[in-house]
């Protein structure tokens, strides 16, 4: 039987209370959102927080909404809500395509967007999605609300820009009129983490790529992205040859590690193929050829 080491349980009823509890209990306190990364780690004793601050009552952090020219997603929004969001489906199909292959429906009923990003697992799908979309994270403390670019959010495996006494409260993504987006993932079986995954958005102007974002998961890409590949495509027509060129750059720049999900060359190959597919579909959607 897997049982976590003993800890104190505190339930926060407001954001202020959650921050106060984090401040009072110091670095040995951890937030508990969906618990679907933290509790398994605690059961394996890979994590041993002394205090858990449960934020599941902070329903004010559970939303997907249009806010000016950005889409705002509350940190406590469950995967299932993101998957079902009509607003996200309208602007960014990449979300539903990624969510449909994150874990399974039961895990998606509990796991949250904020928990996913803060877990910062190198194979986390939403990290790749937000990196592709060049989103921003809003991090709250008793002193301030600061905004961190998603591409600077991850400090390494399982490490983020969220410091002691801070809470990730919101993710923001700019609305890009006419943009197309897509997500591609290869997993060993339904519900499993990615062997490799790639996401992309493409914005066209006069048939030329005006802007593009690429996200990569599980292949050791720096900050879950590959700016060199984006630069190669920007200003070009999204032809098969140009897309292949960008995908090859991703293949060469990523740094996958061999594990039970596959050897390095296989993951590089997947990165290339999945970036090709994601860019191709995103471009078609941007062109209006595909819904």
């Amino acid at each position, binding site marked *: 039987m897997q049982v*976590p080491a003993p800890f104190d349980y505190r339930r926060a009823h407001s954001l202020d209370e959650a921050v106060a509890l984090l401040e009072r209990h110091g670095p040995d306190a951890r937030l508990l959102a969906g*618990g*679907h990364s933290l509790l398994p780690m605690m059961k394996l004793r890979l994590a041993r927080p002394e205090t858990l601050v*449960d934020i599941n009552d902070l329903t004010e952090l559970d939303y997907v909404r249009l806010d000016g020219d950005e889409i705002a997603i509350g940190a406590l929004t469950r995967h299932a809500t993101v998957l079902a969001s009509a607003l996200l489906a309208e602007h960014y199909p990449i979300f539903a395509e990624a969510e449909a292959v994150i874990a*399974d*429906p*039961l895990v998606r009923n*509990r796991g949250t967007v904020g928990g996913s990003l803060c877990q910062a697992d190198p194979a986390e799908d939403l990290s790749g999605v937000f990196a592709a979309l060049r989103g921003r994270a809003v991090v709250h403390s008793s002193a301030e609300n600061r905004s961190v670019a998603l591409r600077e959010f991850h400090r390494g495996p399982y490490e983020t820009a969220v410091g002691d006494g801070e809470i990730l409260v919101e993710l923001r993504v700019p609305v890009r009129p006419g943009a197309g987006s897509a997500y591609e993932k290869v997993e060993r079986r*339904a519900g499993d983490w990615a062997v490799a995954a790639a996401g992309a958005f493409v914005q066209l102007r006069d048939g030329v790529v005006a802007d593009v974002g690429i996200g990569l998961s599980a292949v050791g890409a720096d900050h879950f992205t590959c700016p060199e590949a984006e630069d190669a495509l920007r200003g070009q027509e999204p032809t098969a040859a140009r897309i292949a060129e960008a995908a090859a750059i991703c293949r060469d720049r990523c740094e996958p590690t061999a594990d039970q999900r596959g050897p390095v060359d296989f993951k590089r190959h997947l990165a290339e193929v999945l970036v090709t597919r994601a860019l191709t579909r995103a471009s078609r959607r941007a062109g209006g050829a595909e819904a």
Partner: protein
Amino acid sequence: MQVRITVNGAETGAEVEPRLLLVHYLRNVVGLTGTHWGCDTSNCGACTVWLDGVPVKSCTTLAAQADGHAVRTVEDLDAGGELDPLQRGFMEEHGLQCGFCTPGMLMTLRALLDSDPDPDETTIREAISGNLCRCTGYENIVRAARWAAAHAAAGGAEQPTPPTGGAEQEVTA
């Protein structure tokens, strides 16, 4: 800490350690062993119960998190004294063999049918993708869910044929 959890409509409560998992609270404290405890790693779904109407894995939920909330377990499915159409579907379509995955399957599929009374096969398979069955190959579970969808309107009038004696006939048939 003291927790108070509504389980199948009844108030329950106990002094527990914060680290007690909901699955163990249900089985060992409340004594409802219908909820199965399987992989213990959030993968198999045998431990699926409803938390405030939403199916979740109770091996990955603290009893403390359910404090003040409502839990529904497989024991509640025949609460009216009659089997849920889904349970009857599992009997009619041989939806279980060893039965270990069944409580989780039932709780996941009941939630599906409540939101989508006539799901197609793909929808059913997607819904149970977090519930593993090592015996049936899922075919009969999908049929059982379809049976329940087809017989929901009947309001649970006729009871299924009891499985007595049928097993032997099936083998020789």
